[in-house]
């Protein structure tokens, strides 16, 4: 008798969602995960353990309610263009500088300062080597790529403003370059915003035509942060050198991922970001060519650190972190690239083979594989982003992810307004696993199907109605 009532109580405990042990199990295994389970990633034992939970969960469905308790699981991270986690090797290099090696790198009177300066000099060497700068003196540490871009664009424009009043850039640049240009326009500079092709690439012929006698600077990014398109940097550099115009390249998304060579590409100024290559946030660098010399007006006035171009005490731990990240990137680039492109192919093939009407934004042939920007037709973008809450993805740039407006980059490519609204950027990096890719494909398929099933537009498309021919207003 006792045993029966005991069993009944246990059953009741299992059924009630407040049963702590039960909840833990259910919380860890969403139905989406279970349907997403693929044979390649799971061991046999885990499946057999999981199966009974699944059937019970079907009897008590509690879908899409946000948990009131802190999450027991975290979403998988697929937003490597926004930021990357710090590599353990980088953290390992940084930690001593947060402990006993705390000296000011500019202190010249004691061992603490000397040790810190030695460390920052080594870091500078690592950064210089990664981009093939001829001297470490050409590397200026900044707070990040935004500062580097501001410093390059405004610095060159201001220094040469008495003779040169014209700047050329593209419409798909990062906001910090475009905004720097807007500010210069307000000061009386003229700026040409060159359009890009439908795959996001700049036509070099167009650039050649746009260069004038009073052009001070051409600023083109190497890898686009939203669509991953790689610009023809070497050709652009050649044109700029021929016409004796300075060439600034925002390589925040490229450095450490694809080969960057400032000599071969004729780059005069190059922006680098720490936290995009598995380094710490709050640090970046600007390469400033010394031969032929590029002069810039500093943004910061002060103690004259960094050759007078960027005053302020160097953040030694962050500088060391950036240096370590660059050294690791140089060593790992080939291996990382192989890993990332294999997973990228898997993701793209998986999604396009299982879901119809998916469009790749960007370039198939000239793109960085770690950035896969896809538009899912006939799905509402925000709904899809909300549905994919177990995957940390973005619709585009992190800077503009708060607004509901479609990305200006996609509009610049001429992507259809409706498709621009439904873009999802999948970022793949060093720590992405095959299992995560499989999961992303499953979840995307499931939610795109679900959202389309409730869409009247999708119904019409299935009936063969061309949506473009419909007159929506009744006037």
């Amino acid at each position, binding site marked *: 008798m006792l045993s029966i009532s005991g069993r009944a109580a246990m059953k009741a405990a299992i059924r009630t969602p407040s049963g702590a042990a039960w909840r833990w199990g259910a919380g860890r295994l969403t139905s989406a995960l279970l349907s997403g389970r693929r044979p390649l990633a799971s061991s046999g034992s*885990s499946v057999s353990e999981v199966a009974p939970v699944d059937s019970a969960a079907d009897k008590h469905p509690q879908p899409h309610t946000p948990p009131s308790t802190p999450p027991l699981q975290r979403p998988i991270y697929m937003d490597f263009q926004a930021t990357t986690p710090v590599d353990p090797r980088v953290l390992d290099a940084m930690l001593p500088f947060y402990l006993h090696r705390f000296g000011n790198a500019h202190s010249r009177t004691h061992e603490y300062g000397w040790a810190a300066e030695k460390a920052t000099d080594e870091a500078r060497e690592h950064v210089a080597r990664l981009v093939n700068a001829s001297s470490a003196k050409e590397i200026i540490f900044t707070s990040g790529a935004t500062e580097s871009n501001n410093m390059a664009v405004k610095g060159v424009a201001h220094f040469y403003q008495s003779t040169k009043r014209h700047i050329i850039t593209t419409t798909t640049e990062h906001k910090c370059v475009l905004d720097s240009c807007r500010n210069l326009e307000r000061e009386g500079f003229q700026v040409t915003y060159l359009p890009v092709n439908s795959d996001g690439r700049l036509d070099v012929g167009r650039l050649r035509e746009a260069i004038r006698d009073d052009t001070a600077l051409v600023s083109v990014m190497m890898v686009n942060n939203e669509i991953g398109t790689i610009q023809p940097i070497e050709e652009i550099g050649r044109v700029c050198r021929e016409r004796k115009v300075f060439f600034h390249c925002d390589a925040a998304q490229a450095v450490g991922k694809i080969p960057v060579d400032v000599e071969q590409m004729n780059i005069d100024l190059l922006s680098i970001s720490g936290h995009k290559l598995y380094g710490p946030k709050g640090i970046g660098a600007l390469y400033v060519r010394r031969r032929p010399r590029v002069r810039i007006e500093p943004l910061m006035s002060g103690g004259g650190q960094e050759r007078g171009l960027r005053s302020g005490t160097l953040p030694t731990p962050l500088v060391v972190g950036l240096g370590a990240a660059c050294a690791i990137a140089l060593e790992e680039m080939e291996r990382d690239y192989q890993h990332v492109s294999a997973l990228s192919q898997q993701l793209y093939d998986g999604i396009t083979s299982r879901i119809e009407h998916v469009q790749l934004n960007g370039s198939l042939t000239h793109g960085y594989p770690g950035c896969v920007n896809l538009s899912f037709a006939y799905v509402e973008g925000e709904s899809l982003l909300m549905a994919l809450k177990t995957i940390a993805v973005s619709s585009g740039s992190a800077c503009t992810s708060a607004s509901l407006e479609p990305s200006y980059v996609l509009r610049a490519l001429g992507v259809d307004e409706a498709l621009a609204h439904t873009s999802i950027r999948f970022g793949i990096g060093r720590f992405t696993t095959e299992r995560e890719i499989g999961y992303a494909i499953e979840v995307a398929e499931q939610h795109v199907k679900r959202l389309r099933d409730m869409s009247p537009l999708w119904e019409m498309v299935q009936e063969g109605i061309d949506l473009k021919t419909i007159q929506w207003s009744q006037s």
Partner: protein
Amino acid sequence: MSARNMQVLKLYRDMLRASAGFQDSGVRAYALRRVRQGFREKRHLVDEQQIEAAVVRARQDLEMLRRQSTISQMYPAPPFVTDVPEAGGRRQRKAQGEVR
């Protein structure tokens, strides 16, 4: 098996064991993959000097792996949605207080 072979084999095992201790499954997978890859790439080294350099480097890396995997266990994060409970192995479950 020569003394050198034994030494390298032990380093390999120790590095794999340290890598398996990372709390984050993505980092753990990377560390394991990278250690295997690194040893495979250097498998055909014959020059004694090169081997010695590789062993010295591997020893430093082993220390780094031990430090960093320990730190990762001191700041445990919730598992990823794709993690299966037993994937972390004993060391991770120990870190989460599941086993002693």
